[in-house]
């Protein structure tokens, strides 16, 4: 069958690309985490470092925080790095996640059109800014995807006593990058983490209007997966990765990450701190 020779040729080397099923499961660690850690590029620095030092291989699954925790709760991951403290505490209380420890933080900012029709620029409290948006019916794009960013946004609306609704409230159902593009296109307001905002700054014409309010802190924690969640959880590997993230060496890497590209660090390391410290 000569016509297929081209394909045969291509597929010849295929077996090399397909590693045998990992029988030594303890050598693989599945990290379920959020898209922001991946999109910022931080994990692409940290994961190879850990693999080299530990000899373990890491599979990073970047999804929304809600899904990252849900996967872990089913025993489909070994360790989770997330950023939705209230939700995380719930999973810890339910016994699904163990040993939650803070790793780092950055912050969220509220951005919007330059002419700022809702006049929120400089409002010290994020909640007050949202009240103004609702009162003026200004377009606001929400992630709407159960991500950590979405969870924080919903908490703020709740605090403001507002049930946001169409037509001014738009749910993108997509990641932060896509949501920023939609907000830019619709000349709408949105909440974004600072790291993604910096990555998109050149492409969007929405300046920061509200920042540095305590509820806008974006705290990342690492949690180990309870081995009781499933038959094949690699508890030792998960713990090794969690412990490693809190070592002074890694915390130092986090402290300077992003400086070369954005002129400022994207995350502040906080190993050893507690929720109450903020």
């Amino acid at each position, binding site marked *: 069958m000569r*016509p*297929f020779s081209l394909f045969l040729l291509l*597929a010849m080397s*295929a077996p090399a690309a397909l590693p045998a099923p990992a029988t030594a499961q303890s050598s693989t660690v599945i990290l379920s985490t959020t898209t922001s850690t991946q999109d910022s590029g931080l994990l692409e620095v940290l994961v190879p470092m850990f693999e080299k030092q530990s000899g373990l291989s890491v599979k*990073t699954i970047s999804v929304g925080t809600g899904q990252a925790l849900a996967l872990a709760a089913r*025993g489909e991951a070994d360790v989770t790095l997330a950023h939705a403290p209230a939700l995380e505490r719930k999973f810890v209380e339910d016994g699904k996640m163990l040993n939650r420890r803070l790793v780092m933080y950055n912050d969220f900012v509220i951005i919007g059109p330059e002419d700022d029709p809702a006049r929120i620029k400089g409002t010290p409290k994020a909640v007050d800014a949202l009240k103004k948006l609702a009162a003026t019916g200004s377009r606001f794009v929400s992630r709407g995807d159960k991500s950590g960013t979405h969870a924080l946004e919903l908490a703020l609306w709740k605090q403001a006593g507002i049930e946001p609704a169409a037509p001014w409230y738009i749910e993108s159902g997509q990641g*932060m990058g896509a949501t920023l593009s939609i907000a830019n296109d619709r000349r709408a307001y949105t909440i974004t983490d600072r790291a993604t905002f910096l990555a998109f700054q050149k*492409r969007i014409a929405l300046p920061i209007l509200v920042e540095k309010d305590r509820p806008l802190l974006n705290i990342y924690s690492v949690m180990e997966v309870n081995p009781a969640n499933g*038959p094949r959880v690699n508890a030792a590997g998960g713990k090794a990765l969690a412990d490693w993230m809190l070592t002074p060496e890694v915390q130092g890497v986090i402290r300077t990450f992003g400086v070369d590209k954005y002129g400022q660090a994207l995350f502040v390391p906080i190993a050893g701190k507690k929720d109450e410290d903020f």
Partner: protein
Amino acid sequence: MGLILDGVLQAFRLLLAGDPEVWRITLLSLRISATATLLALAVGIPAGTLLALARFPGRALVISLVNTGMGLPPVVVGLFVTIVLWRNGLLGALELLYTPTAMVLAQLVIAAPIVTGLTLAAVQQIPDRFRLQLLALGASRVQMTWVLIKEARLPMLAALMAGFGGVISEVGASMMVGGNIKGSTRVLTTATVLETGKGNFDVAIALSVILLAITFLVNWALTWIQQRRRV
């Protein structure tokens, strides 16, 4: 428009500079999709030939199912393959999730109905009289089937192209079962999604251009083979 042009230039730069990551992603895409297509041929050509020649109760239903399968949404395939491969799933013990093998599996499920359906059409378009003639000339059933498959090989190349085109361009299933892990399961389509998410639109466009170029080259080669024998 400037952005697209930048992306095209970037594609050439990445390929010519031998960017190892881009090459790895490109080769992995080819390997996974070529393997899946080959397996789909192994399943689809016999299945399609059988469906074309055999007569059995429920045949119309099976053909309808195959035809529906030709438009199987990759994201649905991805979801089901993921659930089956989960640690707690039916095949969890194999630990295949988030590996290239899992991606081959999902792409096989996508491509097999396409190859089956088009093979069925290719074999069926051979006139009945030709078949009878073969039998009259004393051909055994096996010999007849073999001649029919050979006779249908050119339209079957279309099945090959459609199957390969379907899986190399597919993103939903690859993302879900592969996990888009750098150096292991990141392929052209999932890398494009990632780079778009990062705001690296020029890299995303460059990856798209590479994907289009590959699809074109493969189809061009196959079309050349297909048309050459016509002359």
